[in-house]
């Protein structure tokens, strides 16, 4: 029911497990290879040393093939298993050159392959260690490093074969330049040694760079890999000088390289066991947790404090965070993404530390346990997203209304009002010309007064539609008029400088206007204070009086419209009005600047 995928590929569903018979066939082939190596060892000139050598080779061949098959079976979505199997077979191939020692007659092809591939195993080990856990090399420098190692092993190996006179079995020999062949071979040995040391640096960086405390078993595994990477250059460089204890060095190095797969199996087992550890998650989720609690519970269960959750909102065709805001999933890079699906549709995505990719069992168990809770969380977030959308459309509506009001005021101001003033001016000029005719002058004066009244009415209408002085000159200037016209003495305390977004200033202006009007109507107050201040990201507007209090705090009266206006700006309007204790109107409106 829950599938997981990792950073680089967001494939859905569980990767298909490999056919069992195929694994058995590969396993049988591996055993056959081990047997063949042992047989070659036994057959070659009878001394004890080749047998011991064959056993150390088989230790590597079998450990990598076995561990690789188990990894393949347990984590079919990872290429790590097949890669380990390949490393095991490479170890076998590189020892095929023994055929020349074991058999009385020459088998040219295996000999040539074995000699050419003699440096392939260390490179494959390097590849295996760097490709943990997904089986892929995620970063460019890892890919470059491994590619360089392959070039050194195969490319230089071929050159060595072309230059060497290694007897009649060498099918690739072109010229016999033993000195040059030796030099090229040493170059390859040094190059692969250097690349192994570089790979150790990569592992150390990886061990340090994971975003969360490393599990002890995982740390152990990385140490095992690093140790094997130390053994490789030691072995290769030693083979150049061929010291007296060479055979001992070889055995120790082979033993160390062969241990890594067993440590890996141990880690795999440990991770399987960790799955049964998510039981406490079930308990935490039983109480239908809030979205943030769900995230915290998942973060604890996955031991990844950086975990974030995203929910899929089919209606919006996008991912959303816990607050319902749209988010984008990281396409790749440092963060791992695990998609959680249900009935073929996305439900949620876990964005976690990429180091979690080495514990797919844990991720699967956790996502399975959290299934229902995540589905609930998704519905919750969907609701939030709709609310968010509604809020957006409300503020758009209010903004559009304000623009329209502004336009109307402007039309009145530039149209009817200007024309009336011009008309009144003409009448005034006319009046000056007919000084003699008292009757006419009186009537003109009368007409002028009528126009003045119309203008006053128009002015009131226009002012009610939109407070032009607020948009023109700012809140502080506009509030002076309100304070001067208020029915009680008002102390004006505007502690902000500069301008705010227009819709905010207009809302604050109406708030003070309505607040002071209410003081006059209901409060029976002797004084009032208007305060405008800024706290962090909010503009705070307060209208306080010393009246009788007991106002309707349910916003039933004319305040509902103000509350709407403030809430549309994502602000909050609150009223305190204890009986006998005055009334305090306080709006907090967020402002970004």
């Amino acid at each position, binding site marked *: 029911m829950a599938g997981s995928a990792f950073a680089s590929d967001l494939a859905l569903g569980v990767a298909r497990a490999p056919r069992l018979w195929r694994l058995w066939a590969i396993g049988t082939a591996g055993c056959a290879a081990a047997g063949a190596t042992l047989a070659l060892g036994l057959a070659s000139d009878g001394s004890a040393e080749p047998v011991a050598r064959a056993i150390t080779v088989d230790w590597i061949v079998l450990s990598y093939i076995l561990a690789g098959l188990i990894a393949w079976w347990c984590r079919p979505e990872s290429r790590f298993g097949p890669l380990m199997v390949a490393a095991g077979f490479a170890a076998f191939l590189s020892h095929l050159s023994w055929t020349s020692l074991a058999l009385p007659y020459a088998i040219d092809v295996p000999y040539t392959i074995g000699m050419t591939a003699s440096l392939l195993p260390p490179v494959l080990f390097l590849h295996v260690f760097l490709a943990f856990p997904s089986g892929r090399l995620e970063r460019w420098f890892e890919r470059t490093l491994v590619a360089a190692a392959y070039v050194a092993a195969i490319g230089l190996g071929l050159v060595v074969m072309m230059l060497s006179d290694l007897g009649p079995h060498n099918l690739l020999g072109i010229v016999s330049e033993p000195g040059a062949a030796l030099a090229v071979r040493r170059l390859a040995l040094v190059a692969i040694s250097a690349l192994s040391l570089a790979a150790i640096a990569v592992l150390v960086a990886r061990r340090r760079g994971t975003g969360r405390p490393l599990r002890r078993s995982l740390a152990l595994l990385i140490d095992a890999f690093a140790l094997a990477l130390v053994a490789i250059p030691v072995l290769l460089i030693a083979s150049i000088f061929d010291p007296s204890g060479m055979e001992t060095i070889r055995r120790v190095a082979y033993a160390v390289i062969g241990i890594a797969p067993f440590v890996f199996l141990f880690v795999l087992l440990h991770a399987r066991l960790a799955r049964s550890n998510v039981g406490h998650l079930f308990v935490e989720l039983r109480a239908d947790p809030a979205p943030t609690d769900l995230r915290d519970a998942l973060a604890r269960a996955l031991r990844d404090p950086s975990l974030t959750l995203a929910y899929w909102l089919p209606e919006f065709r996008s991912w959303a965070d816990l607050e319902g805001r749209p988010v984008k999933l990281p396409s790749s890079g440092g963060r791992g993404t695990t998609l959680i699906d249900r009935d073929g549709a996305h439900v949620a995505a876990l964005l976690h530390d990429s180091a979690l990719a080495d514990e797919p069992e844990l991720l699967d168990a956790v996502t399975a346990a959290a299934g229902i809770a995540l589905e609930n969380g998704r519905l919750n977030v969907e609701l939030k997203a709709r609310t968010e959308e509604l809020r957006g459309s409300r503020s758009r509506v209010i903004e559009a209304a304000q623009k329209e009001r502004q336009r109307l005021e402007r039309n009145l101001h530039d149209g009817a009002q*200007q024309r009336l003033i*011009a008309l*009144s001016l003409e009448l005034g000029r006319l009046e*000056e010309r007919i000084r003699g005719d008292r009757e006419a002058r009186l009537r003109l004066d009368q007409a002028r007064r009528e126009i*003045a009244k119309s203008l006053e009415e128009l002015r009131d209408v226009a002012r009610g539609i939109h407070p032009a002085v607020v948009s023109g*000159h700012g809140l502080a200037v*506009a509030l002076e008029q309100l304070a001067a*016209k208020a029915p009680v003495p008002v102390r004006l305390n505007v502690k902000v400088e500069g301008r705010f977004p227009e819709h905010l200033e207009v809302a604050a202006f109406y708030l003070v206007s309505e607040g002071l009007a209410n003081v006059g109507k209901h409060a029976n107050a002797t004084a009032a204070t208007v305060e405008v201040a800024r706290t962090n990201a909010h503009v705070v507007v307060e209208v306080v009086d010393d009246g009788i209090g007991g106002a309707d705090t349910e916003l039933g009266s004319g305040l509902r419209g103000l509350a709407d206006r403030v809430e549309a700006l994502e602000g909050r309007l609150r009223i305190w009005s204890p009986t006998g204790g005055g009334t305090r109107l306080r709006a907090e409106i967020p402002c970004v600047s």
Partner: protein
Amino acid sequence: MRVVIAEDSVLLREGLERLLRESGLEVVGSCETAEDLLLKVRSFSPDVAIVDIRLPPTHSDEGLRAALEIRAQHPSVGVLVLSQYVEVGLAMKLLAESAEGAGYLLKDRISDVKEFIGAVRRVAGGGSAIDPIIVSTLLSKHRSDDPLEDLTPREREVLELMAEGRSNQGIADKLVITLRAVEKYVSSIFGKLGLPSSGSESRRVLAVLLYLRA
């Protein structure tokens, strides 16, 4: 007397020009933007600039800003601001430091030709012209234990005319009383309000307005 006009409504601008010319004033320049206004003031050094408070391009505070700039850069040029709304806050912003050579009137006032020309001449001569609405708004302001209540109705009238920027002679003419009587009322008012009476006619406007606003 030389006048510059900034008004973006053609109808009003032309009406205003005719009115001023008919009243014997010389209109040396008229324009519709604040930028042009500043240019004309610089080049013609008029006695007074008549400025619409809402000028293009945004019709917000361009006119007021131009007026303040003229007051700062050309103290000898009187500035008379006209507006369709008069606001206490804007009056205080315009006067800021002094009321000398400054006026702020409701646009409607231009139709009362005699009064309006009187105001233009006053501002051009370094006096002030404050709209009666501003004064009455400030006077209506409620205060606790208000000394204004101690004024006689006549003293209140004189106070209003004083705040509008009229000279003692102007007040005497308006109320049809003698200059001596006006002077008596003025010193009585200043005594009752506790204002220093030393203020000259041009300085007392701001003092009175600030007193009323407080």
